[in-house]
């Protein structure tokens, strides 16, 4: 069953569309990277999927059920600000969270809190490091035994060690329970190594949606003389040009013409190419 799908979803704040005409269906059991620059609409999309924000247009579905007012029981959402009560101890926080959820696994929470160095449960939340706070927040999210885990910038503010440990906890969840995970980041490098699927958004719209290896295999980077691009076949995504040389990112391209070099892009260049193209589209008409 499709864990999360969107059809023509839009969200308008006053005169500004934070998300527009987003349509996608995410694959089950995968780790999905929701990537885009700051302000691209990532958080709004996740908050709509979690039922915390109502779309202005279109509809989201979680495991086939339309999202309406409230978080689906099979979904856990971790907001970017990791909402925890600072004046409580970890133990008290766990008790509060248990009381707010119908389905709750105290064992699972303890398991996650015990991972890595282990969390001191008598410590006040506000005294914890950013990494440990994240671990507590994820433990609470996993206590709901979700089938779909939505994480908004889970790695922001973490030092490299905490980042690695956080990813380890999330990946262990995928290994143990086959949970579908959607993780957002404005830094592709954070997610590149651990994701199967890419959902790239910019300017509120989906720019790329697909299995990462399949997406890469459909694209080529051609480098050749800027004076003669006529023989190049395929859909041009974006291009950078010097006086003599053109570097083209192409989708479904034909064979490289003579005098052109041809390579499969890495994920960074592909994402940069699409973001450059979306910038060019949005900045042109507004000026």
């Amino acid at each position, binding site marked *: 069953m499709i864990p999360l799908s969107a059809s023509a979803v839009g969200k308008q704040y006053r005169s500004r569309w934070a998300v527009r005409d987003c349509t996608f269906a995410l694959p089950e*059991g*995968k*780790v999905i990277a929701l990537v885009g620059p700051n302000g691209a609409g990532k958080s709004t999309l996740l908050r709509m999927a979690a039922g915390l924000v109502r779309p202005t247009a279109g509809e989201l579905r979680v495991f086939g059920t339309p999202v309406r007012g409230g978080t689906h029981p099979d979904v856990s959402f971790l907001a970017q600000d990791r909402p925890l009560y600072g004046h409580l101890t970890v133990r008290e926080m766990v008790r509060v969270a248990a009381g707010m959820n119908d389905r709750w696994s105290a064992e699972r929470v303890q398991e996650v809190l015990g991972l890595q160095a282990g969390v001191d449960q008598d410590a006040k939340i506000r005294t914890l490091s950013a990494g440990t706070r994240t671990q507590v927040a994820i433990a609470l999210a996993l206590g709901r035994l979700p089938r779909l885990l939505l994480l908004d910038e889970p790695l922001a503010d973490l030092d490299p060690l905490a980042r*690695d*440990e956080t*990813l*380890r906890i999330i*990946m*262990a969840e*995928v*290994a*143990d329970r086959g949970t579908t995970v959607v993780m957002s980041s404005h830094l592709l490098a954070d997610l590149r*190594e*651990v*994701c*199967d699927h890419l959902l790239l958004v910019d300017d509120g719209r989906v720019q790329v949606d697909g299995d990462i*290896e399949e997406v890469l295999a459909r694209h080529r980077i051609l480098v050749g003389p800027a004076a003669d691009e006529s023989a190049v076949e395929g859909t041009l995504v974006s291009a950078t040009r010097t006086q003599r040389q053109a570097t083209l990112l192409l989708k479904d391209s034909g064979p490289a013409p003579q005098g052109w070099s041809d390579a499969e892009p*890495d994920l960074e260049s592909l994402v940069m190419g699409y973001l450059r193209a979306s910038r060019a589209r949005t900045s042109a008409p507004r000026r």
Partner: protein
Amino acid sequence: MLIDVIEFRIDRHSGVSTYMQIVHQVEQAMRLGLLAPGDRLPSAREVVDATAVNPNTVLKAYRELEREGLVEGRRGLGTFVTKSLASEATAGDDAPLRKELARWMKLAREGGLVVEDVDALYSAVREEHYPVEERS
């Protein structure tokens, strides 16, 4: 049954996908005789605990190895090596070619070569004998 027969080392900056690194490391361990028929590959969970990679990537690498006929997944038990890639020429510390290479390496070191010199010499000679276009 040995659990810790092989541990994957994932280099995140190599430019080679995690999935290919796992496939290559299993194949290499098989060639060197470190993995033999009947050995169990680490479970996805064990790899996650050691390296924080995506378990789906581990399973995908194992499926590729299965497609190559090197390993077999047994439901509920794990993934097992079914074939031997080791030969007398490559397996074991006393394989003749290995001993000869070790002798050469010792000479290089005694001759004051640094590791970059050794790598450069090795790749240059390898290129002569195994040109890129002949490799599959």
